[in-house]
């Protein structure tokens, strides 16, 4: 990776993570019934874990 493409790759990675996070957080809001602050915090962190797993999985499969 050259220095010029590094920010681009970073942006792409951040975008992918953010897209997954938004989608999964939305999914969490669909699954639950009552919404409060703690619920939002737990949902956001679970969605973050899911987004990390999604990216790790995609990278692992297209590794070769």
């Amino acid at each position, binding site marked *: 990776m050259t220095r010029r493409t590094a920010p681009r790759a970073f942006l792409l990675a951040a975008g992918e993570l953010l897209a*997954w996070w938004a989608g*999964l957080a939305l999914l969490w809001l669909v699954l639950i019934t*009552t919404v409060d602050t703690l619920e939002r915090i737990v949902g956001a962190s679970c*969605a973050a874990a899911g987004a990390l*797993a999604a990216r790790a*999985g995609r990278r692992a499969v297209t590794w070769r």
Partner: protein
Amino acid sequence: MNRLRLGLLAVGGAGLAALLVAACLDLPDFGGSRHPYGDRAVRASLARHIANTIASVNFDQRAYDTLGEMSILFAAVLGCVVLLREARDERRARPEPAEVVRPVRRYALLVLPVALLTGLYVIAHGQLSPGGGFQGGVVAATGLHLLYLGADHGALERVRPLGFFETADSLGVCAYLVLGAAGVLAGTAFLANTLLPYGTFDTLSSGGTVPLLNAAVGMEVASAVVVLLAHFLDQAVEIEEEPGR
């Protein structure tokens, strides 16, 4: 020999069947309305603001039993790890990467995070809606193995640091024990649910220590299943006997 064994089995089975039928006829009728223990358990659960009575029974009223269940799971996984380790007369042969058709691969990649999130949802809402640490943990761990089904064992190994999951397994058991011992330190009994406020009924923070114990069990089960399947996969896919023996 074989006929003798089957004859013996038939005699024993017939006797057992007769006894079982007699016992069934003597049991309280199916659907009867007398459930003294159940009524008391529901009352105790509502008194502690826990919406899911089964979670209340598992993690509050009979939390000591769940500790036993957890240690059985822990010990069984330990036994499997010992039994399925790579022996001295074996070697690892890396299988060539598998070619899975594109729709199946994409399906695996898309459903993996969804399954993980659903597992976490089932764990987190264990004391509210049906579910709990065990069910959610198994779902999350199974979701991770979509990577094996959708690609190959190498891809799974790249996202699954086994040491991390082994540590998480032990940490889950330790967290359960520490939460139990905290009750003793606070001046009540081991695993007594008197430590934290009971909170508002039907919210995520209700039920005192129940959500925490639930999360500990979820972590333990998820990592235990991952470790277990890792060793079975190793045996089935990679490890083979040393040729020439």
